[in-house]
Each structure stands twice: as C-alpha cells, then as structure tokens.
C-alpha cells in the first residue's frame, strides 16, 4: 500500500496531538494508493484502546462511496508501544478487505508505520510505502 508523504505526516501529527490517547482514522483511495485521510474520534479516549464513533463511520463510508474511492485501511496509533498488532487489534479486526495500519510513537522522533491483514486471527504484514505526491 502506498501512502503519500503528506498524508503520512498528517497521521503522525494526529497521533502526536492526541497522545497519550490512541488516535484513529480511515484511509481511502484507489489502486492501493491512499488519497484521503479521515481523522476519526476515539470514542473511548484511552491510551490503550480505540473505538470509532458509529455515526462518524457511517458518514465517512458514505463520503468514500460518493467520491468513487474505496476504504483501503483503518489506522490507529500506538502512543508508546511498537507497531505490532495487539490481541485486541486482532479480535476487533472485523472489517474485511482492508489493511490495518498502525503508527507507533514508541520512538517519538522517528515514528514507525506498518500495515497488516488481520483475518480469522491470522496476521500478515502488508508492505507500506511512503511515497512522494
């Protein structure tokens, strides 16, 4: 999956701004290239968990559809831990056919990003490339 550098910077900025709470969002695009970041509210406002607001989810899903894009990824941050998916990430990965992207601020000066397919308890890393516009 390709993420333009400006969108990646927006994801990192959101993660930093919301830390120590986990930040979350939805990435939309086409042909496996991200074109838009939807910043979402972490309804739980916790540092160890995120849950999106259904009303926001519905709004974003409809906007993605009307834009002719597809939902490519669900992203969230790990403010102080690695990019590895947690047991909770795997358990709650109910939306199929999307990549689960994690931005880690474990090293705050050098944020890390990784993508995963999480299906039926299996974790498969998906290459994520940060690309120029």
């Amino acid at each position, binding site marked *: 999956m390709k993420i333009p550098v400006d969108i990646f910077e927006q994801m990192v900025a959101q993660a930093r701004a919301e830390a120590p709470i986990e930040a979350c969002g939805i990435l939309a695009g086409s042909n496996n290239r991200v074109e838009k970041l939807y910043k979402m509210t972490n309804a739980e406002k916790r540092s160890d968990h995120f849950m999106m607001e259904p009303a926001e989810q*519905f709004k974003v899903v409809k906007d993605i559809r009307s834009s002719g894009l597809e939902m490519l990824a669900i992203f969230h941050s790990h*403010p102080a831990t690695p990019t590895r998916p947690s047991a909770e990430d795997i358990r*709650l*990965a109910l939306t199929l056919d999307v990549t689960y992207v994690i931005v880690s601020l474990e090293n705050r000066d050098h944020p890390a990003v990784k993508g995963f397919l999480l299906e039926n308890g299996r974790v498969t890393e998906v290459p994520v490339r940060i690309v120029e516009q």
Partner: protein
Amino acid sequence: MNIVVNGEQVNCDDDLTVSKLLIEQKVKMPEMVSVEINGKILKRTEFEQTLLKDDDKVEFLYFMGGGRWA
C-alpha cells in the same frame, strides 16, 4: 420490495427484519454491527422487531476498534 443496502439495490421479502437482513448479508457477528436506516442509527434491541420498508436505505458496518500491544 426493493431496499438499498450499503449503496447496493437489494430485492427482498416484505417481512424482512433487520436481524434477518444481517443473516442474509452473511454477517457473522451481528452483535458487533451498527445499523442505520434512512440516516437513523438503530439500537441493538431494535434489530429483531424492526421491519424494513420498500425504498429503505440501510447501512451496516462493523465496529472499528482495537488496542495496544502489551
């Protein structure tokens, strides 16, 4: 009758409830799904008794959540 489910036209029986629709749509964990009908989010307790009507626009999606590595 005809309804729209997640943007797609669907032809279905007249006595279709939200619970039955989720089964027809092969939703494995309906307890982890949010449902919106014509822009209004339903309570989970309403899934069983809510009958769909012709031209209803239904959206459903799974909760999106997770937690940190520990």
